[in-house]
């Protein structure tokens, strides 16, 4: 029962407390600023339900638990680990109503399902615990867009999304984060993939003072999982992207490309874990993290973490940290393009392959606009 789970999560957080930089998973990200204000945070107004889409069940978790417990209870809080992740424990113990999305067997939903979380902290600091459970039954196809935005002073968004994708499903997932510059954003995306699923997730992160994204995927036989990410930070922003891909079964493929752009005194962390279990023969895993560093004061920590227990697999990883290409700058300038525009062109070009992988056109346009806006802001 969910009440038991919540009580357990609460207890577990009481035992664990907030992570510190002594925890290997939080080595480069101090959540002390969050812990300091945690006691004072007031609950934010609950989020609104997203628009209904024909063919999809969209309702609050509370309503779903009441009317269709059989569709919810087998999944809710079964995947995102409140045992090991303090923020997941906090979310599990505290989420208010949450959101349940069920895509029926065989349904092909063309219209993107949009989950929008807006925070306005125009006074005392607030906290919200968005909680989403998305269950895609076998053979279904859907696109899900989560957006987190906000304005004003200090607030914390602590979100957990669990996606359970049944056999032979095709799921495109996007998360666009444009929180207020003063916000804390800690999010876990937990992905459970069935056989022969094709799952793609794109994490696009622009806002927030202190941001931590955990993306954890567990693959089945024949699953194909793509995790892409783009982060652009400036000022004193800190972003930490932790991904974990669990190749639990054979013949699965994972492709991961995270790209970061850092300016000002910002800092970023990329930690990509790939676990290939003993039975997961014929695994094909590829991980790439590329960073473009625009200032001498920004810091990037990038770390692949490969644990391979099978012997017939292909696993590659690579990380790069580079600056703007001086030759490219001069080439553009020598054609009459001004310095600022040339710089922006090259930065957008760096992000190009991530942008081009976004299939939802309005989202792709928005992303390009956000990139340019933030780049202009960065100069002023």
């Amino acid at each position, binding site marked *: 029962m969910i009440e038991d789970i919540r009580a357990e999560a609460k207890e577990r957080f009481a035992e664990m407390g907030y992570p510190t930089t002594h925890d290997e998973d939080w080595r480069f990200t101090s959540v002390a600023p969050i812990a300091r204000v945690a006691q004072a945070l007031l609950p934010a107004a609950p989020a609104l339900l997203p628009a209904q889409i024909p063919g999809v069940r969209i309702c609050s978790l509370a309503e779903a638990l009441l009317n269709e417990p059989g569709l919810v209870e087998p999944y809710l809080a079964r995947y995102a680990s409140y045992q090991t992740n303090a923020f997941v424990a906090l979310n599990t113990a505290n989420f208010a109503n949450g959101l349940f999305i069920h895509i029926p067997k065989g349904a092909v939903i063309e219209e993107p399902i949009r989950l929008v979380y807006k925070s306005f902290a125009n006074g005392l600091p607030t906290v919200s615990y968005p909680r989403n459970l998305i269950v895609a039954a076998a053979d279904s196809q859907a696109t899900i867009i989560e957006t987190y935005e906000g304005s004003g002073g200090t607030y914390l968004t602590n979100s957990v999304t669990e996606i359970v994708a049944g056999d032979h499903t095709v799921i495109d997932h996007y998360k666009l984060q444009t929180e207020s510059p003063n916000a804390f954003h800690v999010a876990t995306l937990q992905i459970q993939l069935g056989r022969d699923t094709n799952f793609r997730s794109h994490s696009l992160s622009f806002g927030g003072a202190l941001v931590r994204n955990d993306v954890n995927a567990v693959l089945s036989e024949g699953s194909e999982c793509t995790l892409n990410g783009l982060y652009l930070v400036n000022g004193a922003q800190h972003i930490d992207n932790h991904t974990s891909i669990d190749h639990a079964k054979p013949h699965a493929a994972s492709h991961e490309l995270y790209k970061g752009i850092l300016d000002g005194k910002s800092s970023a962390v990329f930690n990509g874990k790939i676990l290939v279990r003993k039975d997961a023969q014929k695994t094909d895993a590829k991980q790439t993290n590329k960073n473009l560093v625009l200032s001498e004061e920004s810091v990037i920590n990038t770390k692949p973490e490969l644990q391979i227990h099978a012997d017939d697999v292909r696993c590659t990883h690579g990380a790069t940290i580079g600056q703007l290409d001086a030759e*490219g700058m001069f080439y553009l*300038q020598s*054609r*009459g393009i001004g310095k600022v525009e*040339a710089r922006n062109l090259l930065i957008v070009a760096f*992000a190009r*392959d991530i942008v081009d992988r976004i299939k939802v056109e309005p989202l792709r346009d928005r992303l390009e606009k956000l990139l340019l806006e933030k780049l202009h802001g960065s100069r002023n």
Partner: protein
Amino acid sequence: MSLLEIKNLHASVAGREILKGIDLSIDAGEVHAIMGPNGSGKSTLAQVLSGRDLYQVTAGEVVYDGKDLLAMSPEDRAREGIFMAFQYPVEIPGVSNLYFLKAALNAIRKHHDLPDLDAMDFLGIVKEKMALMEMDQSLLNRAVNTGFSGGEKKRNEIFQMAVLEPKLAILDETDSGLDIDALKIVAHGVNALRHPSRAMIVVTHYQRLLNYIVPDYVHVLAEGRIVKSGGKELALELEESGYAEMVEA
């Protein structure tokens, strides 16, 4: 008044002096070839004129179209009509050739208080110039120079020049790495752009290119100085006697 007037130009890279007093005067309508052995400073001169900040000008002056060229940023030089065809055109992944060219052309137009070209007019110009350079239109949507063959890159340079219509074109070893067919296409493109209002500086190591782009003047550069100047026949002389003799003379 000359279009370009170089007086006693000295330039260094990383503290090492490469140009040791260049004097050169170029009028509109003229084509000047600059020849010389490797390391003579030919490419340095081209790069200094286009504003590459790797090189420090330590003495001398350059007056272009009545203005102090050395005080201008690379982009302002381009906007004022200077174009350098790169010896090694730069690959820019993630920026399409078309977008790049449009940004360049509109930046130059803006500088002259002209409105942006509308999409159809721009495409019209681009298609005409591509035909001149015998380039495949698919190159427009590919990233700038990315994955282009050596010949495609050089043709792309002259294609850009044709679109941007400079007043002073500097061709930095545009012939290097080209086979004879590609060389003819490039030369044909360059010759089509010869105009009484436009000057060209053709930097080359070999006389071969000058069979196709016939210069009005030839200058021989050695150890950072112009050691000999003459008409187009000077190139042929060089071909026969080699640089060594000329440099010692």
